[in-house]
């Protein structure tokens, strides 16, 4: 029997889903501390909204997330609302182009989004905070600076390693969450079945470790 779905998602559903997605972002960021994960995972809700509602609702979710993080956790994160918003736009439009319907394309989306979001984050790090925000990735930035990199390049290098693992995991967890949502919310975009958690972890770790090796190789052997 065909499932009947409304033409557009009712405003009341949107008004209820976005606060939940925002809260999930904030709690996700808190849970990674509890479970000692060296990633952020504060954009899972934004990815869910980007895939199911629209890229622009994901922007709203992203901005609200950073406002909430600034209020509840640390005001330093407020300017990074731009990263969350750009991530939402990127995921939303790529999902509409069919980049969420199979594993390789979703992986591509996760990897490229890390570069896009880090490119937005680096100017904020450098011009607003002078390169540091008190996050554990500052240790890596310090190491890159001591190795002779300029500040923007050092911030980018330390950020991209964490960001790659983070964004790949975020899109895979978002796909797993969307499986649990009602049909009315997920018929707009063709989304793949979620892979087992272990595979998502292996892939995300693999991508991040490869990037770390590439950066180390650049320093030791002077590649490119």
């Amino acid at each position, binding site marked *: 029997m065909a499932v009947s779905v409304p033409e557009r998602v009712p405003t009341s559903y949107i*008004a209820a*889903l976005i*606060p939940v997605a*925002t*809260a999930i972002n904030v709690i996700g960021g808190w849970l990674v501390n509890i479970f000692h994960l060296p990633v952020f*995972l504060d954009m899972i809700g934004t990815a869910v909204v980007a895939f199911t509602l629209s890229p622009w609702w994901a922007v709203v979710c992203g901005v609200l997330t950073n406002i909430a993080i600034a209020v509840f956790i640390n005001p330093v994160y407020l300017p990074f609302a731009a990263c969350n918003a750009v991530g939402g736009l990127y995921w939303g439009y790529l999902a509409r182009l069919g980049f969420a319907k199979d594993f390789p394309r979703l992986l591509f989306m996760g990897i490229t989004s890390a570069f896009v979001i880090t490119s937005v984050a680096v100017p904020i790090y450098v011009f607003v905070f*002078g*390169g540091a925000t*008190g996050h554990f990735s500052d240790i890596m930035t310090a190491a890159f600076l001591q190795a002779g990199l300029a500040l923007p390049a050092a911030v980018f290098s330390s950020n991209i390693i964490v960001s790659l693992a983070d964004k790949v995991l975020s899109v895979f*967890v978002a796909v797993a969450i969307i499986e649990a949502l009602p049909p009315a919310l997920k018929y707009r975009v063709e989304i793949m079945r979620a892979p087992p958690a272990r595979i998502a972890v292996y892939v995300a770790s693999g991508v991040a470790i490869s990037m770390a090796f590439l950066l180390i190789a650049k320093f030791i052997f002077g590649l490119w």
Partner: protein
Amino acid sequence: MSTVQLTFYIPGNSVLHRLNPLTKLALVLAFLMICFPLMHPLYLFLMFFASLGLAALCGRRVFRRVLLGVVVLLPAAFAMAMFQCFWTAVPPPWRVACHLGPLRVTYEGLWYGYVFAGRILAMGTFTFLMVVVTHPSDLFGELRERLKLPYTFCFMALASLQFIPILWREATVIISAQQSRGLPARGFQAFLANFIPLFASAWERARVLAMSLEARAFGSSGKKTRLREVPFTLTDKVVSVASLVLGAVILYIEYLNNWFNFMRTYWIDPTLALVLALTALNGFIAFMVYFLVRLVVPTGG
């Protein structure tokens, strides 16, 4: 189980408490307008201490809460000061103040680093003070009513701020339940084992909320009423206009004194330079050791 606060708001009857949220927003705007382009650490730290003094005037509970906020800002402040001290971001030429082992401290880096640290402490403390003395529903109510922000956006912002502590509490319960069942206390598997039940519960809340909104004609036109009415008095009007005008005047004074220019040459007493560099370095190392210990050593469970 520990109780979770619903907001950072602390009720009170101080002058700041009695101001309209939009007036407080104007004060924040004026403060940020003054702080952000200012490249003088002394004035920035003065503004930080002035914000702490203002918090003390609002009562002991407000002051304590603001101090907790300052503790959260300290790692960022130390990191910013330390980075600039040793790896200066302003364009050369730099003048070397001293050496700490392989690291070189420059006068320009010290100045710029303490500008960043002072800026984040001053701006963060003042903004957090305003958050502590403002009820969120008053703020969003006023934004909707007087600044005509879309009702849906204000509702979503307010609902988000209310959902977070609720889900926070549920997450604590789920973590305790999963750990009592012998699930691992760290790693991605542990994260998922706790995150998925949390999302299921969150989604159920969203579904119920959506149905309630639908039943109560969410999105219908017409005047919306509020539980808490906040007047916009003559004092509010005067304070709002005065703060913005004063902000603009101070900005002009800063410009006349060349305080925006980060390319100026500065001189700091060499002993003071060494003390400042060591303070930034030790503070950064202390917080990074704390983060690394938290990352490595399991907690509870």
